[in-house]
């Protein structure tokens, strides 16, 4: 039972950064913009938050710093992709490389000592219920916040007028512009929001999940988040489920290493990447579902004709 609880809670924790980053990217892609630079924004967010903790700032400020750093990084992409109409694939890749460089540079003085991780909270009374308590009510606040963000974003995209406008822009920026919506401004906001969420994801990794500084500590989680959006066929609930699936994979793999399975640890570590490929293959078979939810203008540069 203890092992089950450990796997269950470990999964929820490992899924948290993926939920943040993938939900952020979902909003970006729903507006018709493809930002491949999640990995870079996460790394910058992770470095900024870690730096803030070392500098003695309180934890909420550190996490906010990570989010803002991610947003600042996303602005670089936004200017290129939205104002200068560059190829979005190239601009996103540039951001991924740049972010990894910046974070490594910021992190050169961080040392290898762990920091005091974000505290878990034991929700009074509820956390004392046997089994249920340790399973659901003893997480750090960010785990709950990620789930809250899922509800907020689902509500925003499908239950508000602003969400409808955002999705319309993702389908047809020309029509939206003709109706009079500020396409470029809304896309900027979406990109910034995606950066904020990727920064949060990075901050969670460096101040709660790991919590120490390792160069390139995201280890592909940004790219996996990107894959999750495709996996989810651009639907929020499936992002949540996908993130838990990948989180579970990570934890099982770690448990396998801890139990000393006769399989080399490197091969176990390769499992999440392998699983990403397999899941992508399965999802891409259903072309109809993909094209139904796929934002039609994704990655196509748009400039309002004046």
């Amino acid at each position: 039972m203890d092992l089950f609880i450990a796997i269950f809670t470990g999964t929820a924790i490992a899924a948290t950064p993926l939920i943040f980053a993938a939900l952020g990217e979902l909003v970006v892609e729903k507006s018709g913009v493809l930002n491949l630079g999640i990995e870079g924004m996460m790394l910058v967010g992770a470095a900024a938050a870690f730096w803030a903790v070392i500098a003695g700032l309180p934890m909420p400020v550190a996490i906010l710093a990570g989010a803002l750093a991610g947003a600042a990084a996303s602005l670089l992409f936004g200017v290129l992709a939205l104002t200068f109409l560059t190829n979005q694939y190239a601009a996103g890749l540039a951001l991924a490389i740049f972010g990894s460089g910046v974070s490594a540079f910021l992190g050169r003085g961080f040392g290898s000592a762990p920091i005091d991780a974000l505290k878990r909270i034991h929700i009074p009374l509820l956390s004392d219920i046997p089994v249920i308590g340790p399973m659901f009510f003893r997480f750090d606040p960010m785990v709950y916040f990620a789930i809250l963000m899922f509800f907020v974003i689902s509500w925003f995209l499908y239950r508000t007028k602003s969400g409808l406008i955002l999705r319309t822009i993702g389908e047809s920026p020309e029509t939206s512009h003709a109706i009079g919506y500020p396409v470029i401004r809304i896309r900027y906001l979406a990109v910034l929001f995606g950066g904020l969420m990727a920064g949060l994801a990075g901050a969670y990794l460096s101040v709660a999940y790991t919590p120490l500084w390792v160069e390139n500590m995201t280890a592909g989680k940004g790219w996996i988040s990107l894959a999750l959006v495709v996996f989810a066929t651009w639907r929020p609930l499936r992002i949540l489920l996908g993130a838990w699936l990948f989180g579970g994979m990570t934890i099982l793999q770690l448990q396998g290493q801890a139990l000393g399975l006769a399989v080399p640890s490197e091969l176990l570590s390769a499992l999440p990447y392998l699983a990403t490929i397999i899941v992508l293959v399965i999802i891409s078979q259903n072309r109809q579902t993909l094209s139904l939810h796929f934002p039609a203008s994704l990655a196509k540069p748009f400039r309002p004709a004046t």
Partner: protein
Amino acid sequence: MLYRIEQRPEPSASMRIAAPIIATALTIAVGSAMFAGLGYDPVSTLQAFFITPISSLNGLSELLLKASPLILIACGLAVGFRANVWNIGAEGQLIIGAIAACGVGLFYPNPESPILLPLMFVAGAAAGMAWAAIPAFLRARLNTNEILVTLMMTYIATLFLSWLVHGPWRDPAGFNYPQTALLPAAAMFEPFDYAYRVNSSVFITVVAVVLMWLFTDRSFLGYKMKVSGAAPHAARYAGFRESSAVWTGLLAGGAAAGIAGMAEVAGPLGQLSPQISPGYGFAAIIVAFIGRLNAFGIVLGGLLMSLLFLGGETVQMNLGLSSSLTRIFQGILLFFLLATDFFIFYRFRRVPEHA
């Protein structure tokens, strides 16, 4: 006075040439500001970054040594990028090529055989292509996004290499270091001069550049791929199959990266260890873009990128600055390059206040 951005009636030819120069100048300007902000004298730091590395014969040898794999891989990748086939896993294909070549070099029964090096070449190219064939198959037949698959396969390749050098291929006489035994002399490219590290593998890159030029500018397949990239609907209407562009693009990149990995292990490295590439596979993506996906531009882009790698090493050694600066410079350069490209098609036009 107001300025407005407007589309040029025709793309500007002079801007096409000026854009990379402006981008490089802006990168250097931002770099100086960054050095100054960090409390280093910008002039001497820039000198350490861009001049010192190439002011000696050894420096020039290192410049070629690093430019060679970058140019080689960028040529292979550009074939795919022209057709909108996004192989961003060249790093993994390089690693697998190096593993296959090193395996042949270590385990071929006759370590003095003159065919050892050619065999390693074939093994490296074939392994790189095989690694790239997986995403090619998945994209061409099963409609799976190649960006994510090539990238995931890079992580898998890195872990596979780590497993090999920590486990089955670890040199028993290597004091427990995670590395293989050294390759025999017949498995190594001959340096031009034993005082310097640059070796005859640069000729492979020269051949690749010529092949790339012939392919893109002189072959029908190259033309078809360009059409598929620029106008997929027109290409389909003309009967060009998308899947052939996917296969050609990914296999060209895989072969080039695999050969680059082979040349690394049979050249400066001489053995496998967990870290065999300083990110050539990723930097080559930037090189391909700086070179505007054509052969001549890629050569220049590769030399510039190589200088960034060398400069990063030099400022690390001489000034104690982190070598991660290299990646920052790479990113900034690509940002500016992409941004200045905008002005090939658009310009600022001054408009009167009351217009």
